[in-house]
């Protein structure tokens, strides 16, 4: 079946010739009209639209945005904060970069609508330190929006006031974890907080109720407020609504970003048709479908899934629709939408060694299983590649990984151990054979991965 065409809501103007990131261009294209309409409505109506829309968070966990908003403690008497997670750090993910650089006002409009709906007076955009130009673009865009009365005191002639500030991170992956991010805004080491009691919706920034949403999620709020939750919920597939940006990298002919209705395109259509298939003379071997923390899939494996009526269906990797639920049923996740493709030139031990070095570097060190485990997984795979590899190393890696997941304060425990668990489970043969294959003659174009 041919791939459906893209449906660009968020990326409508990305790479459009002549489209610039200033306010004038945004307003010329209908910008801030939806904010103007939104502030004439009751805030609860907008929250209801978001609930009806079925929008699920685009940062990684896929938690329903409307539910997140409804958990906010509105009776505490404390201010409510909105924190925008623009700490785009999950390897394989590169969508927020383009929104921030090319269409920052779309994000600001989404933020202001979300703030209005939740009676938020102060929002912070936490942008990763590696986007210095992006931070300046956002600051300029906020200043423009403030001058035009879209941000700041008494916006658009109402009694509603809200300020947005940009807060830059400084190169730490863990700041993408919402409670670590909050600690970072408070000026501390970003050690994630334990939940309960520190659910951001109740005890977040400065111990006040706080909403933390991903950049793409907040952009969707703008479109939901525009078309209504009902209409939005009809885009995509049931329980997997709207569009989402899929970022494809690695061994395909046309890597890049593509926006599709959630679940309407399969992994096979995405990689073979949209991205042009494998590089010349190569075949696909493995794919990580939702950012580097998602469990790897092996081309050729078959998934047997239960249907609602109790019957079963079988899927190949290529058959999997790019949604939240089917990917989860196949033992992995849609995560952040970052699809990393590896072809048959890759030795999976080398690829895992690369990822393990990342996680060992990024563990915050607060919880022993993650701090020590991620380091040991890195040491074992580095030894396999650069020193002596043993046939039993796969089992050893797996035993370390199994002692991390579920034993840490934050999801980094899962994030760092899932790659090892899945690489060993799916490509165990390569780990067993590695002592021999690592010394076999390599082709001249073989790349070092660690």
């Amino acid at each position: 079946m041919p791939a459906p065409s893209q449906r660009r809501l968020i990326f409508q103007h990305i790479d459009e010739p002549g489209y610039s990131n200033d306010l004038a261009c945004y307003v010329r294209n209908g910008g801030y009209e939806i904010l103007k309409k939104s502030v004439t409505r009751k805030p609860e109506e907008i929250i209801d639209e978001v609930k009806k829309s079925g929008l699920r968070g685009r940062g990684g966990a896929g938690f329903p945005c409307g539910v997140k908003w409804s958990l906010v403690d509105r009776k505490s008497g404390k201010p409510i904060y909105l924190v925008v997670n623009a700490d785009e750090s999950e390897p394989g993910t590169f969508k927020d970069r383009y929104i921030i650089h090319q269409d920052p006002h779309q994000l600001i409009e989404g933020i202001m609508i979300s703030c209005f709906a939740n009676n938020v007076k102060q929002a912070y955009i936490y942008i990763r330190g590696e986007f210095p130009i992006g931070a300046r673009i956002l600051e300029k865009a906020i200043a423009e929006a403030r001058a035009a009365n879209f941000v700041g005191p008494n916006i658009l002639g109402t009694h509603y006031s809200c300020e947005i500030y940009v807060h830059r991170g400084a190169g730490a992956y863990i700041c993408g974890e919402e409670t670590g991010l909050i600690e970072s805004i408070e000026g501390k080491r970003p050690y994630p907080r334990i939940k309960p009691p520190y659910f951001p919706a109740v005890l977040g920034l400065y111990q006040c109720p706080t909403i933390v949403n991903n950049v793409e999620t907040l952009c969707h709020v703008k479109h939901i407020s525009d078309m209504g939750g009902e209409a939005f919920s009809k885009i995509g597939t049931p329980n997997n609504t709207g569009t989402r940006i899929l970022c494809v990298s690695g061994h395909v002919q046309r890597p890049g970003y593509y926006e599709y209705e959630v679940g309407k395109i399969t992994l096979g259509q995405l990689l073979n048709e949209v991205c042009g298939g494998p590089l010349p003379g190569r075949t696909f071997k493995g794919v990580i479908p939702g950012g580097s923390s998602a469990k790897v899939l092996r081309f050729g494996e078959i998934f047997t899934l239960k249907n609602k009526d109790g019957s079963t269906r079988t899927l190949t990797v290529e058959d999997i629709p790019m949604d939240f639920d089917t990917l989860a049923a196949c033992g992995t996740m849609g995560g952040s939408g970052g699809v990393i493709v590896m072809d048959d030139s890759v030795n999976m031990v080398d690829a895992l060694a690369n990822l393990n070095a990342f996680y060992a570097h990024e563990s915050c060190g607060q919880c022993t299983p993650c701090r020590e485990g991620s380091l040991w997984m890195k040491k074992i795979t580095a030894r396999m590649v650069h020193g002596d590899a043993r046939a039993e190393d796969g089992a050893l890696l797996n035993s370390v990984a199994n002692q991390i997941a579920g034993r840490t304060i934050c999801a980094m425990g899962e994030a760092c151990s899932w790659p090892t668990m899945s690489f060993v489970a799916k490509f165990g043969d390569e780990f067993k054979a590695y002592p021999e294959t690592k010394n076999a003659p390599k082709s001249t174009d073989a790349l070092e991965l660690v």
Partner: protein
Amino acid sequence: MNFKQETLQRIDEVITHYPVKRSATLPLLHLIQEDAGYISDEAIEWVAQKLELQPINVFEVVTFYPMFRRKPIGRRHVKVCRTLSCALMGGYKVCDEFKKEFGVELNEVSADGEVTIEFVECLASCGTAPVVMIDEELHEKVDTAKARALAAKIKSEAKR
């Protein structure tokens, strides 16, 4: 501390963004690093005093976040992305090429004080891998030839 007038103004402004002064720790450290090139012991004491904190509160932040430096680097900062998507497209080769071009090991300052090369984790531009950030500017689809051209440009700018 001898900071530029503009830095001091921006420091005073950014503190007003937060209801709690401590929140300005990261913004202040960024501003100081942009001004002075690195975060010295004196800078840590200065920030602590400015934000009414103990120096340890600032020190533990400086030592945690990878982007903050305790010593000066070269005038040009070359950051090559190391993580998987870039590595799959030749990131390690690109890093080696830069090291060879400038005759310098990772995280060192070249003999002429011009360049420091760092091999960093994901820069979030995986679709145009391998990527390299030179100071604030991102360079995409960098192969060894492009790495040599970028190195030549840095060298030519140094001579001016």
